[in-house]
């Protein structure tokens, strides 16, 4: 089974604008547990 999250979050376009945009903090293939951070603004 699979859980797919799709959500809106502040952009993080790198040119300094939208500073503090959303970033993922995981890598592909990483094992995660309920409650562990996968990203943040």
């Amino acid at each position, binding site marked *: *089974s*699979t*859980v*797919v*999250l*799709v*959500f*809106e*979050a*502040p*952009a*993080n*376009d790198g040119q300094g*604008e*939208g500073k503090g*945009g*959303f970033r*993922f903090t*995981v*890598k*592909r*293939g*990483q*094992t*995660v*547990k*309920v*409650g*562990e*951070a*996968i*990203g*943040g*603004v």
Partner: protein
Amino acid sequence: LASAWKNTKTEWYWIPAGLGVAVVGFVQIRKRTNAAAQERHVEPGEVRPMGAWQVHVMSTLPLKALSYYWGKFNEIPLPVWLRPAGFKLYSFIFGVNLDEVEQPLTEYRNLAEFFYRRLKPGARPIDERHNVVVSPADGKVLQFGEIRSTGQVEQVKGMTYSLDALLGTQQTPNDAAVAHAVLSEDPQATTAARFGPGGDSDKTAAVYSDTHKEFANVNGISYTLPDLLSGPSENTKKQKRSWFFRKSEDASTTPSSTVDDVTVAADLASGQLSSWFAPGDAHQQRRLFFAVIYLAPGDYHRFHSPVPWVVERRRHFAGELYSVSPYLQNRLPGLFTLNERVVLLGRWRHGMYSMTLVGATNVGSIKINFDRELQTNSFVKLAEQEKEMQKEGISFEEATYRGASALLGGQPLTKGAEVGGFNLG
């Protein structure tokens, strides 16, 4: 010509009726095939790629029936003496950490119950930092990233599917406007869609009575603030239907709300909706992000809320039950849009939020704690339902949550709260 017309002898004879019927039949069939080809925008006789061969092989299997009877098989109660050994073997094969399992192994009557086990309280600490999205389930992060304006969820290995196909397109006008405005990356359009007429901020806040710190909700049942966030406390359980949780025991296991959620609720209660809906700075550019988490057979199969958000709608797509193993996920473009799935749609502090739960052959049943009506992978009923839905040309069943208070207009979930789970069969 005139003389030929006059002098030629006219002779009448019977045409075999069969020839007539054959001609009429041929014309009808040709009309039908052209119409069907028109529908699929396919020129008759045009050669088209048939899609992944695995899909065709797997769709010859009675996946639903397999899943249904697999579930029935796993509900056969095991003798008490066999349970520990049986579950230890299962745990050894699939890598289950038995130290975290809440109950002694003899308590689980069958594999289905063991599969839907709970963990000991505190086994999964929730990351309480304010703007952090936490993992909704135990598993492996298969994909994540940003959805560009094509509206396609681009995967690394070429597996893509359209957002509309995944979440369903019959959105309320506002959702569609917001999602497409976000994809158009035009902040003005987003603001207009969001704060214009019919936007989020039009949601009128219900009365928040200072006296008992309670929400008066649409049904006259009142909730105290802690109730709203961490599930019903002892004394209020009697007074209200279990809107939040299917069974009272569910409420006891919801992790207590984190500090910031209470602040959010206070903020919310005082009518500052901004904490739950779009944040103050409406001009900050927003993007759509996605993450795909695959649960292996040995993983803990209940899923939790990744952020504090409000679920407004549930969409149930009665699709197929292809396996969703990483092997197949990388080979079947659009697999998720083929499988049976439940989409929870709502909002969080940065805008739209959705959680899609995709079933698979061995775990076809998806349960949502606060949604009694949802019935997935019910082999017989679903077949009739599917026919019905196809006749009406709809691809999913939609339910709207009234939620526990008009203030939220949906089902509020705190970060880490248990939302539901995948069941065997």
